[in-house]
Each structure stands twice: as C-alpha cells, then as structure tokens.
C-alpha cells in the first residue's frame, strides 16, 4: 500500500509542482496518474521513490515512512520504469534485467532463473537469443519490454511506471498494454502508472487520479470518472465522447445473448422458416454439427423446396466478435459491416453468443442513466 498525505513539492526555482496531494493506492491496485502536461505527475511519482525530495507532507510505503528508510534500500524494493527506458547500453539484456537482484546480492543461479522467467513472461522469446543481446540490437518495442522486465527484476510488490509505453507506435503500444494487463492479472502488483492518455488510463487503471496544476481533482474508478465527472475540467479532459469511451469498460461477454438461437446446417429450409416465425426473427445464425459458426440465413433465402438444407443457402459471415472484446470494438465492427448482429465465437470459432444492436443500445442507455443520477446529486 502506498499512502500520500498532504504532499507538496516546490522546486528550488519556486515552481509549485505538487500542491497538497492526498492519495491512497491499495495493495494490488493499479492506479493511473492522469493529467495534462506539466501538472506534476512525474514529480508525484518520483517522490514515492525519493528521486525527488518532498517539500512537505508524508509518504508511506507498506506502512513505513519513506523518509525513515535508506533511499537506495527503498528504491530496490520498488520497480521503476520510465518512458526513456534508460537501459544500460553496455550490458546485455540479461545483465540489465538482473540489475536489482544483483544489488540485492542474489546468487547467480537465482538471478539467471529470474531473468529467464521474466523474458518468458514478457514474450521475449527465444529466451536464449534475447539474453545475450545488447540494447542496441533490439527494436523499440522490445526495449520497452526489457525496461518493464528490469523493473520487475527483483519481484517488487510495488511498481512505478512513467509513461512506459509512451514512445512507441500505437499498434505496439496497444499490444504492450494488453500484455501488461494480462501480466498484471497474474502478478497483482501495486502499480502507480503515469500517463496523459485518457484511453490508456481507462484501459489499464483500477483507479484514476486526475491531476491539474499540482492538485488532485478526482480520484475514482474509470467508469465513475466517465459517468460522473467532478467538474468541467474533468468533463473536458475525458472528452465529449465519454459515453463511447465508457463502452470500452464493458466486455461483450457481459451483454451478449449466450446460447443464441440458431439453426443447424443440415436442417431443412422448412424447419428454418418455422424457427424464424416462432422467434419472430428475419435472420438466424447457422452452426455446424460441431457447433462451429458457419454464417447466416435470412428469411428471403429460406424460401424453397423443403428438401433443400439450410447449408446450401448460407450467407457467409463478415465479422466475428470474441467474448473479451470491449463494447466499443464490437460497436465498431457492427457499424463497419452494417449488420445489426454480431456473432460471438470462442477461439475455435464455436458460436457462444450474439450481440444485437438493441442490447448494445440498452447498455448505452444504462451509462446515460448512471451519469444522470451522478450529475443530479452533488
């Protein structure tokens, strides 16, 4: 747990970078420090590992006042990753990652095992190949991964990250974020993560601490922040498309119609017609004997002799969703393919659910209702 109480920082020049911040980050929580450039995010972060000395206030880490610990000892217990990465160019990837373990005096065999484990965890495979490389021999994304691996080196309970994915292309960044989320679910670190990207904050954070000019404006979960912005600054910062952003917080699994009504490819057209009449639908998904999703049949295509099977009249599908897809992506897919329904399949392409436009609309309305309720009360 990290606790900041009335923390301020005034730089020697007189700049008040941080102005009375009180913030608690619980064990295993992913807290994002968000705010416009120059609002004091980095300064706040660096005060936690004492790279920047406090002007006033107290910070405790794991219940202990950081001023009472030796700075080097404190820092060895806290993982630290920065946007510029700062890998040691004269050391191999393995030596870089083993930096803190070495400072802590781990034995060689233990260090080596840890390095291998981390390379595997961050997808830097083949491990034997990457161990030996020098930073100059890595791509930007790979360097960023090594930077994160190095921060995790001695398995610290706390991780401080300052825009660690800031300097890479959007696609790689997205992938690294996804991977980091997966890793975080596994390792459950207490993370303080700095970014000025609202999307990144919503995607990664359990909590978001929104800052402005050195002050904490709102500290809330991403959905609270989107649904109930504390003031105009927050409203402006999260953007007018905050409803769309909120869609990102819900996964397809949560709203999909599971065990959807479907017909088999070896059913007769007559059976399909009857099913449509009974269900009052003009489209039905078609699955094979093994449950694999094959496509759609519409009312127009099931007209014909009863001896013909549905399998012969299938309209192939254009897009597929997956249960873990956030709603904003599902909506984009539906808009793109101009269909009112999105089939949801598992990794083996078995049909597991259906998202209809109506369902999606329903959940959008939910967000509105929440927001109205939030803004109505002070």
């Amino acid at each position, binding site marked *: 747990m990290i606790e900041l109480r009335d923390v301020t920082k005034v730089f020697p020049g007189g700049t008040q970078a941080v102005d009375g911040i009180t913030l608690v980050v619980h064990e295993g929580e992913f807290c994002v420090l968000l705010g416009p450039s120059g609002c004091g995010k980095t300064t706040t972060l660096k005060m936690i*590992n004492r*790279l920047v000395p406090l002007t006033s206030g107290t910070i405790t880490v794991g219940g202990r006042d950081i001023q009472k610990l030796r*700075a*080097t*000892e*404190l*820092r*060895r*217990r806290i993982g*630290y990753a*920065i946007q*510029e*990465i*700062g*890998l*040691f*160019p*004269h*050391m*191999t990837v393995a030596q870089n990652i083993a*930096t*803190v373990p070495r*400072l802590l005096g781990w034995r060689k065999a233990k260090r080596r095992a840890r390095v291998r484990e981390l390379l595997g965890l961050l997808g830097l495979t083949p491990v034997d190949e990457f161990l030996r490389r*020098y*930073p*100059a021999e890595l791509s930007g994304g790979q360097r960023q991964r090594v930077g994160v691996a*190095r921060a995790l*080196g001695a398995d610290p309970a706390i991780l*401080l990250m300052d825009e660690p994915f800031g300097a890479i292309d959007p696609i790689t960044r997205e992938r690294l974020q996804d991977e980091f989320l997966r890793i975080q679910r596994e390792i459950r670190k207490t993370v303080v993560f700095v970014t000025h990207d609202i999307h990144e904050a919503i995607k990664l954070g359990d909590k978001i601490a929104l800052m402005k000019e050195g002050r904490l404006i709102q500290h809330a979960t991403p959905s609270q922040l989107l649904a109930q912005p504390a003031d105009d600054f927050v409203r402006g910062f999260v953007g007018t498309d905050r409803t769309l952003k909120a869609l990102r917080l819900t996964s397809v699994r949560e709203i999909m119609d599971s065990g959807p009504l479907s017909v088999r490819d070896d059913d007769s057209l007559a059976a399909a017609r009857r099913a449509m009449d009974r269900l009052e639908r003009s489209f039905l998904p078609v699955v094979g004997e093994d449950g694999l999703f094959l496509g759609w049949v519409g009312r127009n295509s099931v007209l014909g002799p009863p001896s013909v099977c549905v399998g012969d009249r299938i309209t192939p599908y254009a897009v597929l969703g997956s249960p873990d897809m956030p709603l904003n992506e599902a909506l984009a897919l539906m808009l793109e393919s101009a269909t009112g329904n999105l089939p949801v399949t598992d990794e083996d392409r078995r049909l597991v659910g259906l998202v209809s436009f109506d369902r999606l609309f329903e959940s959008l309305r939910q967000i509105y209702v929440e927001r109205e309720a939030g803004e109505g009360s002070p």
Partner: protein
Amino acid sequence: MRRNMILFLLLAGLLALTVWTTSLGRVGFFTMAPPAKLLAALREHLEIVLLAELCAVAAGIPIGLILSRRSFRRGAPILSAVTSIAQTVPTLALVGIFSILMGLGLRSAIVALGVYTLLPIVRNTYAGLVSADPAVKEAARGMGMSTPQILWRVEMPLAMPLIMAGIRTSTVLNVGSAAVAGMIGAGGLGEIIMTGVSLRLVEMVLQGAAPTAALAISLDRLLEIVAGRAVPRGLRRPLRREDFGRT
C-alpha cells in the same frame, strides 16, 4: 582493411628511410648515428613516452572525473580555459620551464610531457562522463544504485570509448613532443634530430624523425586495438572525428 594497408605502406616507407639514412655512415665531415645508438635512442624515446603517458593517465582520469561531479562542474569552464591556453604554449617552452624548475634530465622531461599531454585525457574523461544519457543515470538511481555504484558500473563504462580516444590522442602527441625532450638532455630520438638541426644535416634530422613518426603510428594503431577490447561490447562503434577533440 584498406586503412591497414596504407598504414603498413607508411610504416614500411618510414622504416626504409631510417635504414637508408643510417646506412649512409658518413656524410661530408659528419658521422650518422650508428645502428646501436639509434636503437638505444628509440628505446629511451619509448621509455619517456610510456612514463609520461602513465603520468598523464594517472592524473588525467581522476581530474576529469572530479571535474565531472556536480559540485565541481563550475570548474569546467576553467578547465576549458586552461586547455586552450596550455595548448598555445609551445612544447619547447613548457619543457624549458620544467627544466628550470626541476633541473635538466629525464625526470623533468617526463613531468613536462605528462602535463602537456594530460589535457586530452582530462577533457575526454570529463566529456565522456557528463555526456552519459541522463535517462540511463536516472534509471540507475531509480533502481537503487548508490553513487559509487553508478560511477563504476554505469558512468565509467559508458565513458570508456571517449577516455580511450583521449589516451590515444595524448600518446601520439607525446611521441612527437618527446622529441623536444632531447633538448634538455633526456635522450631519445630528439637528440639525433637536434644534432642534425645544429649541424644543418637533413639526413640526420630524417634519421631521427622517421623512426619517431613510425613510433607514433604504431602506438596509435596498437592503442586502437587495446581500446577496442577495453570498450564494452554494447558500445562498440566506429569512433567519430569529434571523439578526439580538437587537437
């Protein structure tokens, strides 16, 4: 490869010149330095250069290091002032001053040369240490390295290419300047050159100058190889012109 070839040809030429001038034996009234004397002079020369270089390294690296520390950074402008002034003082004058202060002979020659060739090392050590990527230093600090650990494990290795370049520059400078040491009776190839000059005998000047140049070239190449090994692998790259400073 091509560079090696050129160096080799150059060395071969200089050596041929040395052998030829020595083989002349007598020119007019004068006797050229016999082979044994030439070899002795070469050995002396090498001794002077190595000892002076040792002094320069032993003093230069710590001075550069101290100047690069935050609390001494204010001394850096003084350093560059001293550097440029000292470089305008002719070697001859410097050697002369030291011979007056410390007497004629080998010792004052070595000290004078050491001081003269100190500057490239100080400057490059300083430059190498202050130019280290701040993000790398911040990462080192943020991970809990102590100040000495940052210096020895991060800053010094990172400064190594520049420090080695400084040592090379200073060594080459040393070989040439050591010729002047002959003037204050320290021996070396300078003595042969000086004698040649006073006798107005070009052949004898060449007899001393050619092996001096050959020595400079060989030492530079040798140090390049040594430097290649001293520089950490991840940092190896072809040196750029500016790495050698303005000398």
